[in-house]
């Protein structure tokens, strides 16, 4: 199912699953990722799944590109459907003006009212394609076609922790204060990344389903205070 394996530098395999970015392709990536991770193959130091690629980095003292490529090609992957183990995670989100930093921009560019945008946003189940860039950040899709917009022309130097943003076909949650260019429409008090929980530090994992639901400011601060 991997279309092609090439080298990324001298210490990583670059596995290409095709050009399409959709859930079907991504499920294949996640399946390979999970299976290879479970096998604990000697020399592999990191696995980085994304929409349609899987990068496998390795320790050059233990194995080299040709040897590891062969090992990966020889693995028999199970036929099971990982969708059966999908978790559903509910994320409370407050879209008060204080948090919806780009709602005006979205409203004028998309020619929709604030209410219409939020309705479309909340009325959908999302799929987690990958996590990363910053620790625990989930890349979720696909958002309603009518609320798709490109990134900000000038990215923010600081997007606050907890910010919920959208761009193109995707939504995400800023797990840390970070620079970023996504259109921010709310904030969640939910802790998405917990470094103290080393076994399962991320609340949302690739392959999971995510539902957002709206809360008011009072509920937001109550949840935030109880964190």
């Amino acid at each position, binding site marked *: 199912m991997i279309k092609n394996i090439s080298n*990324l*530098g*001298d210490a990583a395999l670059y596995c290409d699953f095709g050009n399409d970015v959709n859930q079907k392709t991504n499920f294949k990536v996640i399946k390979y990722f999970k299976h290879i991770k479970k096998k604990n193959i000697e020399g592999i130091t990191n*696995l980085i799944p*994304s929409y349609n690629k899987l990068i496998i980095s390795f320790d050059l003292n233990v194995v080299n590109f040709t040897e590891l490529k062969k090992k990966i090609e020889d693995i028999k992957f199970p036929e099971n459907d990982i969708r059966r183990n999908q978790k559903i995670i509910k994320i409370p989100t407050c879209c008060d003006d204080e948090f919806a930093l780009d709602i005006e921009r979205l409203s004028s560019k998309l020619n929709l009212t604030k209410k219409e945008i939020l309705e479309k946003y909340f009325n959908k189940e999302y799929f987690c394609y990958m996590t990363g*860039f910053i620790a625990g950040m989930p890349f979720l899709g696909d958002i309603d076609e009518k609320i798709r917009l490109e990134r900000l022309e000038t990215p923010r130097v600081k997007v606050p922790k907890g910010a919920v943003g959208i761009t193109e076909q995707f939504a995400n949650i800023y797990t840390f204060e970070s620079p970023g260019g996504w259109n921010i429409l709310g904030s969640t008090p939910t802790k998405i990344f917990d470094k103290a929980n080393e076994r399962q530090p*991320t609340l949302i994992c690739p392959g999971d389903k995510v539902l957002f639901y709206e809360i008011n400011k009072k509920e937001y601060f109550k949840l935030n205070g109880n964190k």
Partner: protein
Amino acid sequence: MEINKITVLREGVNSTFQDLGRNNCYHIGLPFSGAMDKRNYLIANKLVGNKHNEAVIEFAYQGPLIKIEDGNINFAISGDIKFNIKKNGKLITGDCYKNYNLSKNDEVDIISTNNSVYGYFAVSGGFDLKNNFGSYSTHVRSKVGANNGNKIQKDENFFIKDFKDKHVNKSLKYINSKIEYIRILKGTNFDYFFEQSIKEFTSKEFLVTKLSDRMGMRLQGSKIKNLKETNIRSEGLIKGVIQVPADGNPIIMLSDHGTIGGYPKIGVVISADYDRLVQTPSGKKIKFKLIELKEAEKLYKLYQMETENLLSQI
């Protein structure tokens, strides 16, 4: 048991605890981190009799000023570093690649690096720290690693684990090697760029700009022109990857890079040249040379043999 305690009187620049790095966390968005210059890190630990993955203090350009608050410490500094020691009130000029014993009220003042970026301060027994995800390596952006994921601050205290062999003198004759070229392999989007741009990329000099840190090295030189697409679908990154954003200025991913990126990859620095790459200070120029995978693997074996040979001399 004796208490060995130090106080940081001046924090230096980007001083953090680092070890060999963090495995198996890229998929949750945590980079490998770890000591930027692995060889100098390993040498520093060996000089004080530590196991090879003990945490050390890494600093950039200027190191901390450290006072021994209580007990004794045995330390060594690796890199190309200017430093002074104040022992029993007397000032001594320090030498890298050599261990020193200090007692209560003595000080180490790590003044600056010479024509390089990173240096390492290791103590016998190691620092008494909490690890995170199996590593002491600090990643400041996600607040992960030793010292609660923070840079080392002024007035902080650290404890040092008990150690034996306090008075064994160890040293190494070593001069940090420089190379003319940083050798690279073709990146996965090599064919996204104009032939002329690739020619310039692999023959002209590029300036290491001030916007370089543990996350990445931003270069300036000939603009690398894209003929296909200036963005790709976001995908994984590893250290050493050279991305070219729309403005045509290459960025090399270093140990604390974001784990996912969406710029085309023109090349990847070979593993054998990484230590030397990261030691190139801002304001200096570097040149790239394109080689093949087999040669990169051979060069890594050589690098590894050299490192092991150096460690065996201590």
